[in-house]
């Protein structure tokens, strides 16, 4: 793959950059969940690996979070954009070479950022923990090249219309650069106090709201009609979804700070908007589930559909939980507890991961023109991911409720720690299942590239029978 970095664009095989992004994302997923499992073990077994500051939880947590968000999730998005954007425009990717360089710069920048975090060089701002130099690097050398490639591909399309998926892709790649440049203003200009707090959570909220959620949804808009062969149920519901994300998802950052001395009108505004995030969620879920009409058997039979629909179904509890937990009454109880950690994993490891995994499974098979090496390994991956995630989510939600009760009723801290210990062990078990599944996935995709059954031109992977 690296040999194409210095080749002429026209000499680079179509789909090369997507493959690079795709395999990078899986490797980051293995690393990110491995770190997650390690961190969970430290919470479950406090004597596990002590005495070295580099393996302290405070150093490792940010590395896990950023490896997963900017390694796994964002590189899987890059992979999806590299093959879906041109496919929907009946054209080629604007520049395979830029795509390859972009992936390289992404891997280098992320590795550098994670090493700095690991060494303790951090902004100390949750989710925007990277120091400002890395933030600028991400905006200029990771987000902007991706934005240019996606936009130029859309502009050079051979269709008159632009399909729903590409509205989301094009908007999100533009917005993620804005989010990085604006959300990190406190670091660039040493803003402190409430301004820093608000912009920190404006950043964290919009990385989710204008990057992860819309791009993950956009993938489902492609995967389901493409694999089932059904038309998308409604173009007009797509409009409702897109514009409600823009209006309702971009605004409620203040609902992360309901107990802070922000102006109360801002919190009231954000809180209403927070519940209204259910509008895009309802539009999205109904559009995708209605597109499945007549093809529900594929939910059982087809791996990509199973991953996608599972992710889509998780959007329901995700947005119900998200909408209500940010209201004053509920936030008072669960703020700062494991409940929020569970919710964050429902968004990133539940909803979005299942959609991205489907995109990577489907994309790598289509580009490599190789059928998945082992359906059994694929199925094991799915179930390890689902059971592992569910174990994690349920245990952390219960632990959060215990912590909330402890907080409100002023239960001694150590008693709360003892009460939630079993749930910390369950969390570690769940996270480790996810990590194990991802190791198998990496092997499965590597073997797919090397030994997968060749897919004839013009055929889809699911049209061929599995051979093992």
């Amino acid at each position, binding site marked *: 793959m690296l040999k194409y970095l210095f080749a002429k664009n026209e000499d680079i095989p179509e789909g090369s950059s997507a493959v690079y992004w795709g395999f990078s994302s899986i490797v980051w997923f293995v690393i990110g969940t491995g770190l997650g499992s390690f961190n969970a073990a430290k919470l479950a077994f406090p004597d596990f690996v002590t005495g070295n500051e580099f393996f302290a939880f405070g150093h490792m947590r940010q590395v896990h979070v950023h490896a997963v968000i900017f390694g796994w999730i964002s590189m899987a998005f890059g992979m999806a954009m590299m093959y879906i954007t041109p496919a929907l425009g009946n054209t080629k990717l604007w520049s395979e070479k830029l795509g390859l360089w972009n992936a390289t710069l992404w891997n280098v920048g992320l590795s550098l950022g994670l090493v700095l975090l690991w060494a303790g060089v951090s902004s100390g701002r949750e989710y925007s923990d990277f120091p400002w130099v890395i933030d600028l690097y991400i905006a200029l050398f990771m987000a902007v090249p991706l934005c240019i490639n996606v936009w130029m591909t859309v502009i050079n399309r051979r269709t008159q219309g632009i399909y729903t998926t590409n509205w989301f892709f094009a908007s999100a790649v533009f917005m993620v650069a804005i989010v990085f440049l604006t959300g990190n203003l406190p670091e660039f200009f040493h803003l402190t106090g409430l301004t820093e707090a608000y912009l920190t959570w404006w950043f964290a909220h919009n990385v989710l709201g204008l990057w992860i959620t819309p791009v993950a949804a956009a993938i489902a808009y492609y995967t389901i009609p493409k694999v089932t062969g059904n038309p998308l149920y409604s173009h007009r519901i797509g409009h409702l979804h897109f514009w409600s994300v823009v209006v309702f998802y971009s605004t409620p950052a203040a609902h992360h700070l309901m107990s802070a001395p922000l102006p109360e009108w801002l919190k009231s505004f954000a809180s209403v908007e927070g519940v*209204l995030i*259910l509008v895009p969620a309802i539009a999205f879920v109904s559009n995708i589930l209605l597109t499945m009409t007549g093809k529900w058997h594929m939910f059982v039979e087809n791996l990509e559909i199973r991953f996608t629909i599972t992710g889509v179904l998780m959007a329901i509890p995700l947005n119900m939980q998200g909408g209500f937990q940010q209201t004053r009454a509920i*936030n008072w109880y669960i703020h700062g507890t494991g409940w929020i950690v569970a919710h964050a994993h429902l968004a990133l490891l539940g909803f979005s991961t299942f959609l991205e995994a489907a995109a990577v499974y489907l994309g790598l098979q289509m580009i490599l023109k190789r059928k998945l090496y082992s359906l059994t390994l694929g199925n094991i991956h799915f179930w390890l991911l689902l059971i592992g995630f569910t174990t994690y989510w349920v245990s952390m939600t219960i632990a959060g409720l215990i912590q909330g009760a402890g907080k409100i009723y002023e239960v001694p801290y150590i008693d709360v720690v003892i009460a939630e210990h079993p749930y910390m062990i369950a969390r570690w078990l769940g996270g480790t299942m996810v990590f194990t599944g991802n190791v198998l996935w990496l092997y499965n995709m590597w073997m797919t590239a090397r030994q997968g059954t060749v897919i004839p031109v013009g055929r889809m992977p699911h049209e061929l029978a599995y051979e093992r």
Partner: protein
Amino acid sequence: MAFDFDKPLRTLSSAEENKKDQMLWEAESLGGITEDNNRLPVPVVWLLMLTVVTAFLITLPLWGQRPNAAIYAEYVRLMNTPEIIAMQDDNAAMAKIVQLSKGVHNDKHQIEAKSKGGVEAPHVGESLESEMDYDALRARHPVTMDDLRIVKPQIEALMAKGVDLEEYTVVGDRVVIANFEGNYKANGVRERKQPWWDKGYTIDIFYLTMFFIGVTMVIKCLPPSSWQPKHDH
């Protein structure tokens, strides 16, 4: 593109525009993907309306009332009574204060009776028109004797100044002017009490209205939902 307002809830585009859109819709393959033109199912419309109503009801500012200084004024007064001073155990003293404070301040009749009977004038900051449920707020924001000892001098200083204690919030160990921005009072100063209906809500109504008008216009520019494309290419 000009709007056609003949049948605004069916389509805002002219017949020619719709015809052009329909031809493109049926002819074009977007990477092998096609789209239908179905409307939002009626149950989903109801679900969205329920969501909007719920969003406003469940986020009423009242659900998140902050502890204002007025709810602790009675606690502070009781701390100075011989009965409480004589108690050695802080927990028992706090329990007694909570018990004695039940119903005080939010019971208009009791306050009025107190005023008329001349037993005790209403405390500074006590408003006969107060709509706040002090008992509920106290239950929501319990304090210990140690907490009270910290805020007591601050509350007493405010009482001495004659300000409305409902406009002051207790934040940790400090009693500070609340950050609400209500209507202007007769003296030209803003009211700092948590309002039933605040500015954030007004902005939300504007936002929501503009959103639905905007999306309706976008959707109604499409061919009417009674037309469905034939995907035979």
